[in-house]
Structure formats: structure tokens, C-alpha cells
């Protein structure tokens, strides 16, 4: 066990003080000289032909500098299936379709101008559920594909399929089988800071976008493509990420409003800022995809799982974004949570005229684990085995490969299960009639990056200056999760300097090396691994040159000391002989000889050494770069095979609940969470991530739901979209971190940002079942669903 200076120790985050002082500059706060304000006109119908757009009154309003529509701007397509458009021309396919936009000298004038834009529509029949959209003869949401070829139906042309083992054999071996259908709703990321950007061209037609994004480099690629569409091929987009007021997946794709800001900026010749209001954030930004999962599992008489059959149906909404790829992540627990052979997984996505969805924390895993972990309890009961024992029996083990080809290295699942059972006092269950119950659920998630794109790499540059500061340039994004915190610690630890000397620079495609994006809990894993590699490279360089410069500098130290203290007798130590690269150590910003004498003059300030190397003829400075590409694979999602991550995170959560059977309200008495995190990097930040994730899991379990009727969001505000407040988090939460010390993880650590909310809802549902014998299949578990289920149960009994 290494004794770390920083890793594993409590450390407050470096960006904390500025945030506490109200000094952090969010996109809302950012100003650029001459900046204009953009506002968007959204569709008044969920599905309609656009017959005419009258912008004349808006154009004449004093203070308006530009009004754009698809008719007076080049076509810009977006989305990885290229089925979306920055501004809609012929047709609107959802309420939030962008029809026109305005740039004005202040936001109020922009808003007034929007109200002056009149659109003539020819309404078309709308499709508001996958079932409606799959019916024979249903109208087409997209008549053609991006290549102009006619579409036959509303099926999204993406395949997610997995078959392994022998499903029929597995079914034959099963003594007990349980099947169920589970649904999850659309849920909003609810970042406290809403979405927005500023787009600005320089006089060379190069673009800068300050963006609330988690994918600065993929955004750069998308914006460069847009520039090409605008006749500016060869010009470059630079993406700078300001302080983010949250992310949670909302920044994982580019958005129409960003392209609209770019078009307005080009049209006006001035920077244009677009920031969403809270109502626009709820109604016009892409939320978490909803899902319907049918799951059938079987086990033998001892409780060993013999097969698993999964079918997923998702409402894709009008356009395709990352919500459509949730099945790629669902495949992971479907094939690999608990030891299972004989797996069938298939997912279908269907276009509708509902809002399209994109990434949100967990990315399909909370949705699927809701179904799987509920079904596990049902199967356990059917088999007559305790849910904890059932899971222990089928638990994943270290160093195994799963049906999907996931190479599990470390695996703390058994320890997590045991920890939760012990903390919940699992053996002591509540008597029937007390309306109190206990439940648990586990998770598997990617913990070592996630190769969902051709590259899962992350670059990092370390630049030392004359003062011993380490300037860090990294393309990952700090959105509150604490990336900068752990990166600071990792650099300080690996290099051997004080953490106060580590300065993280803003994420900027112009200065930082490429990174695919901060998602899939990969931020710390990538950044810290890259930091360790870069630090080692740097240490090597420093120690190499120290062979010459260390002796001469410490000699000066000794002279100075002798002058001050003429009686000083130095120890018998040949500095020049000892000054070999392999003998040096760098710690707390001081370089010294390992196992050498403890004399103060032999401890040389790194900054001194650097200045000596710099300020001379043929001087040198130290900048080093690393491009870390983790050992994982891009899976074939049609076959459902590939080791998507370098390592996997596991965890278990347990809930103790009390149900008010007269009102259907569920009170959480206690939550317990045990997570295999590999290694705790920053305890404070890790706890914060877990508490925050559990809060989101609580919301997901009980009341979060974007209500949509005929394509319109009915609750685009915090009054009617409820998220937990401090009062709702008023129960003990016990956290325990299992350190499995993964060899692929930086200092042994795995990714931790998402796992915290994956098993929360099913753990609670399992506890409710234990308390009152009813199982809710459809999130959120609202009181009236509980009452309805209790009523049904009573009727069945009577």
C-alpha cells in the first residue's frame, strides 16, 4: 500500500472559493464586446407543414439586428444520424422545432420580436407513442432519410442486438421463470444553470463558441461541418467551456440553438448570446429518454440464473440524439450484471412527434436496471430464495469475461452486497403488517472509459514554468463533478509538487489536446491516467537534466549556508556521484537524493532547478504531452459484443422504507450505498457525487416525470416538475467505498459519476414490496400508484 500525499485525503476543491464568492463566470455571466442577444421562435404544433413564415414586423422592430429562418440561411444538419436541422424549413415534427430566430440589442427586444413572427401551418396528424408510430399506415415523421431516399416506416435505423449461449437450452434448464414489463418516464437533467452559448466570428471568419458543453472537441467537429455548410470550409471553430452550471448529460450533443447562434453571429457580424430560460430548458432541451422493457429471466431450483430475455422499446422523439443509443449501455447490465449465459437482447427505437431525447446520467443503465433488479426480486420470491442470497449466488466475480465480452478485472460486487446487507441488518426483517421493508439492488457500469466512438482517448499537457507552477491543459470538462479537483491531486501526487502549484487551465479546443467528451464516468479515469503518464515523462526529463544542474545548485546552497554558519560541517556525501537520474526524488516541489542525507541544502526547490535550466545558453523548458487511450474496444452493437471499458464499476444500494398505506406515501428511513470505486481519490468529492446521484435516484423513483400530452410538455417548471429539496433528503445515508484497486485505474480508481443513481429506484421498489407486498412496474412510484396497487391486492385477496 503506497502512502499517498494527496490521493485519498480530504481536500477542498480548487474552484470552491470562487464559486462560494459568486465569482465563477457561467455562460449567463459572460459578456463579449458588442454582444447581441438571440431568441428562438419555437413551433406551435407537434406536426405540421410550414406554409409561410412572416418575419416582416420582427425585422422592423427597433433594436433588432437580424431575423433568420431556414429560407434565408444555408441548411445545417445535425445529429449523428443527420436527421435534424438547425432551422426547420418544410415541416415541424415536434413542439420545440426551431422555426426562426432573432438577434437584438437586448433580450427583451429579442423576445418581443419573436412574438411578432407569424407562422402559417398546415397541421398534420401527430404520433405520440411508439405504438401509434409503429401502426400500419401511420404517417411518417421523416418522409426521407438524410440521403433523400424515401423511408418505409418510423423505425429508427439503429440496431442493438445481442444473442449469446443457447437461449432455448437456458429456458429448458429453468425451474422458475418470471417475466415482467417495466417502464420509465422522460426525466429532465435540471441543471441549475440553464443551457446557452455565445458565438463570435473574428474578421478572418474563424469562429469561437463559448458553449455549455461536455464535448468541446466533438462540438468543434460539428461546428466546423456547419461552417462548411455556410460556405466557410477551411475555417475553424474554437470551443471554449466556461464554468458550467451542471451537465448531467445535457451537454453531450450539439444543439440547434448553438447553430442558430452561429448563424446569427455570422449574419450580424457581432457576438450573439443565446441562453435558455427555465421554461425553455424544460420544454425545448433534450431530456432523458423514456423506455419500456420486457424482461424474462429463469433460474434453476438452486437459484442459478439460466437465461435472460430482454426487449426494449424506446420513443425516439422527432430527431435522433444520444438518447437513441441508450440500448448500447443497457446491453451492459443486460448481458453482464450477475453471471449469466444465454442472453437475448434487442432494442427498437421509433420516431414520434414527441420531444427528442439525449444523454442523462446513467444513459440507459438506470432504465434497464430498474427492470432487471425488480425482476430479480420477483424471481427470487418465485424460487423461494432470499433476494440477498439470490444475488450473492449469481454475483459477478473478478477476472471473468461476460457474454458481451466485457473483461471484468476487479469486481467488488460481493463485498458491496455484503456491506449493504450488514448495514441494513438484512437478517432482521420487519414483520408483515408493519408496513416497513428493506430492499436492495446492484449495478454494473463502465468504470474505465467507454469506447462508443472511434476514439476513447484523452490528451493532457503539463507545462512547468519558472515558478514551479504546473499548468495543466486537459480537454475534459468540469461540470461540478470535481474533475479539476482530482486532476489537481493526481498531478500533484504523480509529479511530486504541492497541489497549490497545480493550475488547471480552461477547457479550450484551441489550447487543450483532444478528448472525446466528459461522459460515461470517464473524466477522472482518463484525466488522472493521462496525468500520471505525463508526470512520469516530466519527472524523467527533469531528473535527466538534474544530473548536471542539481549538483551546481545545491553547491550554491552549501556556500550560502557556510557563509551564514561557518562552523557547519557537511556530511561526507559525494553529491556529483549521487546525482544520477535514478537516485532523484521529487516531493512537495523539492528535488533531493533518495536515501541521501537529510540536510536542508540538499533539498532543492524545483523552481530553482527549472530556472537554472531555462536561463542559460541553449536553455530548456519543460512541457510534456500525453495522449492516453485506454485498453477498451468499440463494440459491435449489432452483434452485442466488445469490451467497451477498461474496467467496470460495481455497487449495491439498500433502502429501508415505511409506507403510509392510507395515502400511498413512502418514507425513506435509511439508504445504504456500497460502491466498488477502485480507489477513493478525493473522499469529499466522491461523497458529494454519491449523495447527489442518490438524490437524483430518489427523484427518479418517486416524482420526476416530464408530462407530455399530444407532444406538449405540460410541466415545464419547478412548480410541477419536482426534484428533491433538502427536506426530501432528510434520512441517514450510509456510504461505504470498496477499494478493489484496479490495475487500469489511476491509483487504482474507477469511474464513479454515474453508478450512484443506477440501483436507487429498484432498491426502493424492492423495499416497498417487502413492506406491503405490492410491486410497481412503472416509474415514478407515486402515492396514487401505491394506493391503486394496494387496492388491487386487497381485491385479489378478498
Amino acid at each position, binding site marked *: 500500500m503506497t502512502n499517498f500525499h494527496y490521493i485519498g485525503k480530504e481536500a*477542498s*476543491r480548487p474552484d*470552491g472559493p470562487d*464559486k462560494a464568492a459568486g465569482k465563477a463566470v457561467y455562460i449567463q455571466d459572460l459578456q463579449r464586446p458588442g454582444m447581441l442577444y438571440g431568441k428562438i421562435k419555437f413551433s406551435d404544433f407537434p406536426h405540421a407543414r410550414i406554409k409561410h413564415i412572416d418575419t416582416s414586423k420582427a425585422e422592423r422592430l427597433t433594436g433588432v439586428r437580424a431575423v433568420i429562418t431556414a429560407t434565408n440561411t444555408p441548411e445545417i444538419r445535425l445529429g449523428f444520424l443527420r436527421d435534424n436541422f438547425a432551422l426547420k424549413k418544410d415541416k415541424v415534427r415536434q413542439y420545440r422545432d426551431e422555426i426562426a430566430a432573432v438577434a437584438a440589442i437586448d433580450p427583451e427586444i429579442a423576445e418581443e420580436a419573436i412574438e411578432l413572427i407569424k407562422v402559417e401551418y398546415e397541421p398534420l396528424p401527430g404520433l405520440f407513442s411508439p405504438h401509434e408510430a409503429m401502426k400500419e399506415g401511420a404517417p411518417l415523421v421523416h418522409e426521407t432519410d438524410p440521403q433523400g431516399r424515401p423511408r418505409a416506416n418510423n423505425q429508427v435505423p439503429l440496431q442493438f442486438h445481442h444473442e449469446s449461449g443457447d437461449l432455448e437450452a437456458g429456458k429448458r434448464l429453468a425451474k422458475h421463470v418470471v417475466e415482467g414489463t417495466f417502464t420509465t418516464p422522460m426525466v429532465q437533467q*435540471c441543471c*441549475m444553470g440553464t443551457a446557452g452559448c455565445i458565438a463570435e466570428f473574428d474578421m478572418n471568419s474563424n469562429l469561437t463558441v463559448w458553449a455549455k458543453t461536455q464535448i468541446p472537441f466533438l462540438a468543434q467537429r460539428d461546428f466546423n461541418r456547419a461552417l462548411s455548410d455556410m460556405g466557410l470550409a477551411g475555417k475553424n471553430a474554437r470551443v471554449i467551456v466556461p464554468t458550467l*452550471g451542471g451537465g448531467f448529460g445535457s451537454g453531450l450533443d450539439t444543439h440547434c440553438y448553438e447553430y442558430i447562434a452561429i448563424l446569427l453571429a455570422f449574419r450580424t457580424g457581432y457576438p450573439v448570446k443565446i441562453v435558455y430560460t427555465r421554461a425553455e430548458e424544460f420544454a425545448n432541451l433534450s431530456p432523458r429518454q423514456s423506455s419500456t422493457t420486457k424482461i424474462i429471466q429463469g433460474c434453476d431450483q438452486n437459484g442459478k440464473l439460466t437465461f435472460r430475455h430482454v426487449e426494449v422499446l424506446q420513443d425516439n422523439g422527432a430527431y435522433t440524439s444520444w438518447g437513441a443509443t441508450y440500448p448500447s449501455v443497457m446491453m451492459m447490465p443486460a448481458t453482464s450484471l450477475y453471471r449469466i449465459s444465454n442472453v437475448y437482447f434487442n432494442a427498437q427505437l421509433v420516431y414520434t412527434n414527441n420531444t427528442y431525447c439525449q444523454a442523462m446520467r446513467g444513459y440507459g443503465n438506470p432504465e434497464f436496471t430498474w427492470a432487471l433488479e425488480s425482476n430479480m426480486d420477483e424471481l427470487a420470491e418465485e424460487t423461494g430464495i432470499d433476494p440477498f442470497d439470490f444475488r450473492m449466488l449469481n454475483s459477478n466475480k473478478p477476472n471473468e469475461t461476460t457474454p458481451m465480452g466485457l473483461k471484468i478485472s476487479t469486481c467488488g460486487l460481493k463485498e458491496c452486497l455484503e456491506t449493504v446487507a450488514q448495514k441494513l441488518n438484512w437478517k432482521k426483517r420487519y414483520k408483515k403488517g408493519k408496513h416497513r421493508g428493506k430492499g436492495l439492488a446492484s449495478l454494473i457500469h463502465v468504470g474505465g472509459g467507454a469506447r462508443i466512438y472511434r476514439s476513447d482517448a484523452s490528451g493532457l499537457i503539463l507545462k512547468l514554468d519558472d515558478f514551479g507552477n504546473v499548468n495543466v491543459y486537459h480537454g475534459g470538462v468540469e461540470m461540478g463533478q470535481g474533475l479539476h479537483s482530482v486532476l489537481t491531486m493526481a498531478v500533484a501526487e504523480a509529479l511530486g509538487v504541492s497541489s497549490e502549484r497545480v493550475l488547471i487551465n480552461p477547457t479550450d479546443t484551441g489550447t487543450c489536446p483532444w478528448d472525446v467528451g466528459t461522459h460515461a464516468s470517464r473524466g477522472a479515469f482518463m484525466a488522472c491516467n493521462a496525468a500520471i503518464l505525463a508526470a512520469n515523462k516530466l519527472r524523467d526529463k527533469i531528473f535527466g537534466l538534474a544530473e548536471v544542474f542539481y549538483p551546481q545548485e545545491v553547491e550554491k546552497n552549501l556556500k550560502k549556508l557556510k557563509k551564514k554558519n561557518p562552523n557547519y560541517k557537511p556530511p561526507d556525501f559525494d553529491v556529483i556521484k549521487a546525482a544520477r537520474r535514478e537516485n532523484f526524488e521529487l516531493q512537495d516541489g523539492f528535488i533531493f537524493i533518495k536515501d541521501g542525507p537529510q540536510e536542508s541544502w540538499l533539498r532543492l526547490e524545483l523552481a530553482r532547478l527549472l530556472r537554472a535550466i531555462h536561463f542559460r545558453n541553449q536553455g530548456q523548458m519543460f512541457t510534456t504531452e500525453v495522449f492516453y487511450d485506454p485498453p477498451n474496444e468499440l463494440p459491435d452493437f449489432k452483434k452485442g459484443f466488445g469490451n467497451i471499458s477498461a474496467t467496470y464499476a460495481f455497487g449495491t444500494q439498500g433502502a429501508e422504507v415505511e409506507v403510509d398505506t392510507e395515502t400511498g406515501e413512502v418514507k425513506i428511513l435509511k439508504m445504504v450505498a456500497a460502491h466498488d470505486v477502485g480507489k477513493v481519490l478525493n473522499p469529499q468529492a466522491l461523497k458529494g457525487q454519491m449523495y447527489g446521484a442518490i438524490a437524483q435516484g430518489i427523484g427518479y423513483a418517486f416524482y420526476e416525470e416530464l408530462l407530455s400530452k399530444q407532444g406538449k410538455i405540460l410541466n415545464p417548471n419547478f412548480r410541477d416538475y419536482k426534484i428533491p429539496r*433538502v427536506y426530501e433528503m432528510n434520512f441517514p445515508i450510509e456510504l461505504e467505498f470498496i477499494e478493489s484497486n484496479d490495475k487500469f485505474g489511476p491509483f487504482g480508481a474507477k469511474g464513479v459519476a454515474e453508478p450512484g443513481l443506477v440501483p436507487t429506484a429498484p432498491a426502493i421498489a424492492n423495499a416497498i414490496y417487502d413492506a406491503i407486498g405490492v410491486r410497481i412496474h412503472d416509474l415514478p412510484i407515486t402515492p396514487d400508484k401505491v394506493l391503486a396497487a394496494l387496492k388491487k391486492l386487497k381485491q385479489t385477496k378478498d
Partner: protein
Amino acid sequence: MKKEISFTLNGSEVTVTIDEHLCLIDILRGPLGQTGTNEGCREGECGACTVIVDGQAVNSCLYPAFEVEGKNVITIEGLQEPNNKLSVFQQAFVDHGAIQCGFCTPGMIMSAKALLDTNQNPTEDEIRDALLGNLCRCTGYVQIVEAVKQAAVQLKNKK
């Protein structure tokens, strides 16, 4: 119609000429350039815009500009101490990991300050009641409550 109003902001007298239909948050973030107070919903639900007016925590997004005439307003910028030091409230948040994205933080700290200015010994229930109007999506509130408890202790010790 623009009119002139004067009030005390963080201990200093300020005068601004402002449109009648605006709210306190617009004066703070606009002509006064105090962008520490954040707008999260403009409906009095999220509390990100919380400031203290005459000793009481209010949502500045719903406080009509003209009502602030002659009043004493404290924002997050007013908490900072000389020589770049954080106040007890702010430092407690930093020390306890109560800050992640930070967007809710200024409002949350102002609600905490409003509580501790009038109640030096708050129970945990009183702390939760004081913070009920402040939403946070990142932290799960646990470390925030711990930070407020710590600030209460430190303020008492100071006295």
C-alpha cells in the same frame, strides 16, 4: 419608463436608473454588474437568486425593483472579507464539499446567512426549513447541511 432608485448594497449607497417592470435581480446583474446572484427559474422556486433585504432572505427574481428603494441589500459579493478572504459561511461550504457546479451556491449561502444572523443555535430541522427554498441538483444537500452546522459553531466560537 425609467426611474431612479437608491438603496444600500453591501454597505454602500447605490443609485440606478431602471425600467419599472424589472426586478431586483435585473438591477443586480445588469447595471450594478453583481453577477454572483444567479437566475435559475424566475419563478421563486429555485432560490438561486436569493439575496438578503433588510435582514430577510428573498427571491430577487420576484422582488420588484422599485420596492428596494431605501432598503438594505446584501448579496454574495457583500460577504467577502478584506484581503481576499471568505466569510465563515462561504469557507464552511468550501471546507465541507458543499459546492459542486456552484450555481446554487450563492443563493444557498445567503439563505444560510439569513438563518444564522437571527438564530445562532439552529436545529437541523430549522436549517432544512431555511434552505427549503433553495434547489441543488448536484450535491444531494448532505454536505450543505453539514456546512451550515459548522458555520453555526464557528460563528458562536467567534463570539
